[in-house]
């Protein structure tokens, strides 16, 4: 790890100060003093700013690669064989320079570090000519992304690492005899194993700056575990990998997978509320939504409009009763907004969702009676087909 440990410690403290300021425990002047006293990285906390810098960094990266291509193009074949590695080298140089200048979570560093991973991945695919068997590229990308995570403490690399690991498992199992048949079970076991492994590491962790990476891996395991026993995923993959021809036939052990599709999200929800784990709670929400989608794909009992209306009513009832129940509680599980940890960022997205799903469209002046002249409404799920 080449990040300055002192600065990382300071970062933890300034982030805590930000939280406390939002919660109203300290005032702005105090936060300003804290920031002044504890030197920190060049960091962008606003996601939009970070995204803008990421784009600019990517442009810079691309333009440097363009210059190299311009110079090397006379080398023809040999150049094309090594160009990806050259570009990855550019990424390494850029990332090292930016880190030495104390850029961290800035957007620019993200562009260069992700550039390394992308170029190494492409380079390996071209070199090994492995267009069918992606095992070797997956292994290499997993190793490299772990290295970039560890060296630069770069969270997105951790995400790439997790995905590459799943890819390694997936392609590795396909290579084995009967691998496809046991793939869901092996994935479940591995995900569960890594889940408890990372959980244990988190609880025995002493350094805060590894916390986010481990937490990401931990949450990723939860998602992989759910997906590996989801009926829709298993069925579609079986058709893809085993070449099952099944119009009406069921996959083997279908009752098991249906059972898991429902119990896993419910269990997540229960566990999240019990252990006060917000990330697990969000994963459980998404998993429940995906489970409902899974059922609708194969057994659409109700027409879509009735399902939507009833779903809306049921959801409203659930929210209503939960709010009534939690309204007057002061401690533990409550409806009162938490001063320190809140998910208000999601609430800010509300207006955007409304604008995109209910926004009025201009009238289309055609004679066809099917055109809804007024553009009076366009329901969320209807994709403006009126």
């Amino acid at each position, binding site marked *: 790890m080449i990040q300055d440990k002192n600065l990382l410690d300071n970062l933890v403290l300034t982030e805590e100060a930000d939280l406390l300021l939002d919660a109203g425990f300290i005032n702005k002047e105090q936060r300003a003093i804290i920031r002044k006293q504890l030197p920190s990285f060049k960091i962008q906390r606003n996601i939009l700013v970070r995204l803008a810098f990421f784009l600019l960094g990517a442009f810079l990266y691309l333009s440097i690669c363009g210059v190299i291509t311009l110079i090397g193009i006379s080398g023809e074949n040999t150049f094309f064989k090594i160009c990806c590695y050259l570009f990855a080298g550019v990424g390494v140089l850029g990332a090292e320079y930016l880190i030495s200048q104390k850029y961290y979570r800035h957007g620019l560093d993200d562009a260069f570090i992700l550039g390394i991973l992308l170029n190494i991945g492409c380079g390996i695919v071209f070199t090994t000519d492995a267009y069918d068997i992606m095992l070797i590229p997956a292994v290499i990308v997993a190793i490299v992304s772990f290295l970039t995570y560890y060296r630069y403490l770069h969270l997105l690399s951790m995400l790439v690492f997790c995905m590459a690991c799943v890819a390694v498992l997936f392609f590795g199992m396909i290579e084995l005899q009967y691998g496809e048949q046991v793939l869901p079970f092996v994935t479940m076991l591995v995900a569960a194993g890594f889940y408890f492994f990372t959980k244990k590491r988190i609880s025995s962790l002493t350094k805060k700056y590894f916390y986010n990476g481990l937490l990401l891996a931990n949450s990723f395991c939860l998602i992989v575990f759910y997906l590996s026993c989801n009926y829709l995923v298993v069925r579609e993959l079986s058709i893809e990998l085993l070449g099952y021809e099944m119009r009406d036939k069921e996959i083997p052990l279908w009752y098991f997978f249906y059972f898991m599709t429902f119990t896993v999200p419910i269990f997540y929800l229960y566990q999240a509320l019990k252990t006060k784990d917000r990330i697990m709670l969000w994963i459980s929400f998404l998993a429940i939504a995906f489970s409902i989608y899974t059922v609708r794909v194969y057994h659409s009992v109700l027409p879509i409009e009735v399902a939507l209306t009833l779903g809306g009513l*049921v959801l409203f009832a659930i929210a209503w009763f939960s709010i009534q129940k939690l309204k007057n509680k002061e401690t533990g599980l409550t409806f009162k907004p938490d001063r320190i940890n809140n998910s208000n960022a999601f609430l800010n997205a509300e207006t955007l969702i409304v604008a995109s799903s209910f926004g009025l469209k201009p009238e289309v002046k055609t004679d066809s009676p099917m055109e809804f002249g007024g553009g009076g409404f366009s329901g969320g799920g209807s994709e403006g087909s009126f």
Partner: protein
Amino acid sequence: MTQFEEQATKDLFDKNLITENQYQEITAYRALGIFSLNAELKLLLYFSALLFTSGIGILIYDNIDSFGHIVLLSTLLIVISGCFYYCFKNSKGFQKTETISESPFLEYIVLIANVLTCIFIGYLQFQYEAFGTHYGLATLIPTIVSFSCAYYFDNKSVLTIAITGLAAYIGLSVTPQDIFNSSNDFYDNQTLTYSAIALGVLLIVWTIYSSRINLKTHFTLVYLTFALHMISVATISNLFTDDFMWLLFTVVLGISSFYFYKVSHKQKAISLYIFMIVYAYIGFNLFLFRILDFIRPDDIWILLILLLPIYFIVSIVMFIKLIKKFNKEIA
């Protein structure tokens, strides 16, 4: 996580950066072990409103000929009246400043009532041509209803519906997924461009007027966001035109960028600031491209590619300076 947060608070205390009183207060608060479902449950309410109104919309559209129209219309009317009854009963009435309602449901019921009203008017128009062939009216009336609801009940979501309605009235689609794709043909349709710019200016003028009479000043950011995106996208799409009109649009973009530069500082809104810079940067690059295209220097494109990294480095340095300046000025 909590173990690290408590540790961090303690470290801040040890370094004398927070007072003992504050430290005690914070540890006491943490000891409550609060796990708030506030945002999550509100979001559930939100999705229920989305699902419900979408379902009703499709239900009515699909069964437009099969149910009795009167039955359908009256059912819808009853539901709408029920929603509005709840809203009027629970709201504090119109206030010029931001109102915070005690009931968490009010916001969502207002939204449902408003969307259902739009559906109702759309249905009337479709089935009975209540507004004759004045299709504009059928857009304008939901817009007016939405504006009234937004101002009366102080609801930002409904306000966005109202603004999209206003844009739809002049033929623009400003929903987030449409503003960047081809549904607005600014390139072939100059009138649409002028309308977009005019509407943007109108929204800006309205925010200035509102702040003068202190009317719902917290809506300003919503208006300005719409205005910024409308004006910028309309002008940038016109920077490709063949005649010399593009010079005019460059000037318009320049003026609007300058205005939003000023106003984002005043509003302390980094989202406005960032989008303003991004649009201005795109505009500037297109301007350079047009000039190069005009001069047509034949042999220097290799030189250009070699210069490109330097150009981007300079841009990055400028960006960093701009962001730093902004953060300092709003702090």
